[in-house]
Every structure is written in structure tokens, then in C-alpha cells.
């Protein structure tokens, strides 16, 4: 028990001092996950909205697949990206394995389906309300997608934050494609896994607390944004 409380004390001391090794790990985590969320949003938002608006053969199959991909296991994504990027793989010549770029690729693949599927769901509801009016006005397809994304902006912020939460919390994919190399590809989740198995509970716990606070902060932000939106736009 004393081990436990000591570990907590050390963890808090570590967070308060925020020494450079810790800062480096937190910084890299945020950098990778934010870029991954940005890329996934650029693909997922228009894709999700388009799936809500346009009717074409195979659409339902695509929606089902997309929903299924939301539960994509991170280690499997890691494995696939590993195979693609490894020396003998199709993209091996790029030399990206065990770099932050590889981690960004893996996380982007992981969360694009989440953002696209959630975007499709919420856009679908809005489109049911808007479709007759838009068709009456003769709104062009590209204008329709942009307008739906804009009018749905508050619930999409929640969607994007959900993607960010998933990216920053997963360990399987970044562990496999990043390799947890000190000062290069070590992020919060991989460090926690490594330091726990090494018995260095203070650092693991300190990072764990930061990760928890991040998750809490992200969710609080999502909640407040939604509240404000409901108040303003009804």
C-alpha cells in the first residue's frame, strides 16, 4: 500500500515539475494525435456527409462497413500499417516504419471511420429536415454537403473530439508501428505500458493522470460546446 501512495506522490511531483522527458512525451502524443485527427476529419467529414446525402448502389453496404470499422482493433491497424511500411512491404522504400509519421498514419486509419460514421449519423438527421427545402431551392450537391457540415458544426465538434479521444488513448497501433523508441516515438500510452512492466510506477501513473485529465478536458469541452450551441440555435 505504501508503494502505491509513494507512487502517487512521485507522480504528482513529476507532473508539477513537468520535467523535459515528460514534456517531450506529452508533446509528441498531442502532436501525433492532433495531426491524425486533422487528417481523419479532412477525409471523414465530407465522406460522412456525402454518405448521408447521396443515394447510390452499394451505399448501404458502405455504411455498414463504415460502422463496423468504428470498432477496428488498434493492434490490427498497427499490424496492417506495419506490414505496409516494413522493409519488404509495398511502401517499405519510404522508410517510415518506427517514425512519428507511421504513428500518424496508423491513428488516421483508426479514427477516420469513427469520424465518418458519426458524421453520417448526425448529418442524416439534419438532411431529413433540410432535404425538401434544399431541393426546392435547387441547392447544388457540393453546396449541400458544405451547408450540412456547417449547420451541423456543433455536433461535429463532438465527433472530432471523440476521434481525438480514441487516438490519444490507444496503445496497440502506435506501439507496433512506432516501436516506443525513446526520444523518437515514445508517447504517453506506450510509455505507460513500458514503465508499468518495468516497475517504474511513478512515471506511468503521472502520465496516466495526465491522460485522464486530457480525456476529461476533451469531454468537458464537447459538452460545453454542445450546451452553448443548443442555447443559441435550439
Amino acid at each position, binding site marked *: 500500500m505504501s508503494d502505491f501512495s509513494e507512487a502517487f506522490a512521485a507522480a504528482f511531483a513529476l507532473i508539477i515539475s513537468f520535467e523535459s522527458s515528460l514534456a517531450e512525451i506529452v508533446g509528441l502524443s498531442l502532436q501525433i494525435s492532433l495531426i491524425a485527427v486533422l487528417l481523419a476529419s479532412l477525409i471523414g467529414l465530407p465522406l460522412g456527409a456525402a454518405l448521408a446525402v447521396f443515394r447510390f448502389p452499394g451505399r448501404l453496404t458502405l455504411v455498414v462497413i463504415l460502422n463496423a470499422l468504428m470498432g477496428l482493433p488498434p493492434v490490427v491497424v498497427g499490424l496492417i500499417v506495419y506490414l505496409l511500411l516494413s522493409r519488404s512491404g509495398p511502401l517499405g522504400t519510404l522508410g517510415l516504419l518506427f517514425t512519428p509519421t507511421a504513428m500518424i498514419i496508423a491513428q488516421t486509419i483508426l479514427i477516420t471511420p469513427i469520424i465518418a460514421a458519426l458524421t453520417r449519423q448526425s448529418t442524416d438527421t439534419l438532411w431529413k*429536415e*433540410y432535404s*425538401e*427545402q434544399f*431541393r*426546392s*431551392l*435547387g*441547392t*447544388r450537391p457540393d*453546396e449541400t454537403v458544405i*451547408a450540412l457540415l*456547417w*449547420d*451541423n458544426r456543433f455536433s461535429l465538434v463532438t465527433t472530432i473530439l471523440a476521434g481525438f479521444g480514441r487516438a490519444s488513448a490507444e496503445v496497440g497501433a502506435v506501439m507496433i508501428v512506432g516501436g516506443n523508441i525513446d526520444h523518437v516515438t515514445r508517447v504517453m500510452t506506450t510509455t505507460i505500458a513500458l514503465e508499468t512492466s518495468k516497475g517504474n510506477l511513478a512515471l506511468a501513473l503521472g502520465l496516466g493522470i495526465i491522460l485522464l485529465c486530457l480525456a476529461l478536458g476533451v469531454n468537458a469541452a464537447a459538452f460545453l460546446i454542445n450546451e452553448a450551441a443548443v442555447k*443559441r*440555435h*435550439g
Partner: protein
Amino acid sequence: MDESRDSSANKGIRLNQNQTTEPNILPLVLDNVSYEVNGMRLIKEMTLALKSGSSTIILGPNGAGKSMLLRLCHGLIKPNDGTLSWQGPSGDNASFYQAMVFQRPVMLRRSVTANLHFGLKSRGLSRTERNQITEDMLQITGLTRLAKTPARSLSIGEQQRLALARAWSLKPEVLFLDEPTANLDPAATHSLEEIIGTIKATGTKIVMSTHDLGQAKRLADEVLFLYRGRLLEKAPADKFFEAPQNDLAEAFLKGELLWWHRQELKPPSEIKHRGDQ
């Protein structure tokens, strides 16, 4: 809230006077048009023509097919049978000359001004033109002081006025109105009718559905009476209200309920209550 106070008393505003110009898309001719959903025929073999220069009110009880007829005319749904054609010179490009206001106003989650801009953008107007028209429309419909307000926080009456302004700003030759005052109180209804009157005065053809007889009398030049998907009577308004030819129309005008089999209502004395001896 005084809905009528600042409505269409609109001196000095340039309205689009297309009264004198020739129609671009009218008349609209429906030939034997039927529409069905899941085997249920909602519009049955309807043949009629809508001409420019008069306002047409579609009357009938709930479920008569009023909304369906408007949607068919506006092109939102396609008939399963029969043909529908705009016979004016620009008939091939008819959707450009029409607009529609729905029973429940569809408000974009943006400001009042942005809602008006959105409609105009779909017509490819420049920013300067959009600004000018938006300003005019806000003034005519009495929404200027609400220009920056989020549209969805307006009262339902104000929302419907905005929907009407958005439709009118497109300068349509034909404006379809689907029971636009069905959810409004008398003051808001009055305000909306005033605006509709102004739109009519600029030469826009109004095609409006309602089950409000008073409203029909106030706005109609011509009446279509629908019942269970059929057009039972089409007549000039004065003739229709004075002496309807169809017995169901007559019953409707008298405020009688139209039952499926036109059965007589039992007088209250004949209805047995529980506990009666």
C-alpha cells in the same frame, strides 16, 4: 409579441413588378396525374391547368392530398402516372422560376440574414445583389431588427415570415405555399397573409393549400377542392363560395365533417353510456 406591427407596411421599397411581363413557365398542365406510395393512391387521375395572374387556393380536409399536389407541381415528387408540364417558353427550366414554403418552416442553423443569403446563393447572385435583396426582404417582412438573430430562436410566426421572405427573394413566377399558417396564431396569420397579399400584388402566382375557409376566402381567386386524392371541384372563388357544385364541397363549406361513407352522426341521445340503465 405583436406579429403584425412591423410587417409589410413598406413604403418606398422596390418590389419586383413582373405584373406586366409575359409568363416564363406558366401555365402548368396536369394530365391524368396519379401518385401512390406503397400501393396507396394519394393523388387520383388529376387533370387541371394552373394559369398566371390569379391565386389558386387548394381546399380540402386533412388527407385530401393538398400537400402531395403541391409537391407534385413543385417537382419534389414525380407522378407514377400521367404527365405534368410547364408550357411557358422557359418550361424546360421550370424549377428556376418556382419557390415553396412548407408547413413547418425549415430554418438553417444560422442567422436570419444568412438564411436569406443561402437561398439567393443557390440562384448564383453576387454578394452585392444578395445584400440588396436581403435588406429589402427584411424590411418588407418586418424582420430587420432580427437580422443577426439565429433563425431557430425566432418565434414560429417569425420563422414562417422568414421562410416566406426567403422564397419570395428568389423572385419566383410561382410560389407554392403548403398551409403556411397552420401552426400560427391569428396575429401571426394576419401578418403572413398581408405579406402573401403583397407578393400576389407583384404578379407572382400563388398556389396555396389550406383548410382554413376564412383564409381561402380572403386570398383565393380560384379554388381547387380536393377530397381523398381527387379533384372534386375547380371554380372561381366567388362562384365556389356562393354555390359549390359538389355536395362534398358544400358540406365542407358548411363546416360539416366529411366521413368516409358520409354516414349520419348519431344524435347524442342515442349514444349509450356505460352505467346507463
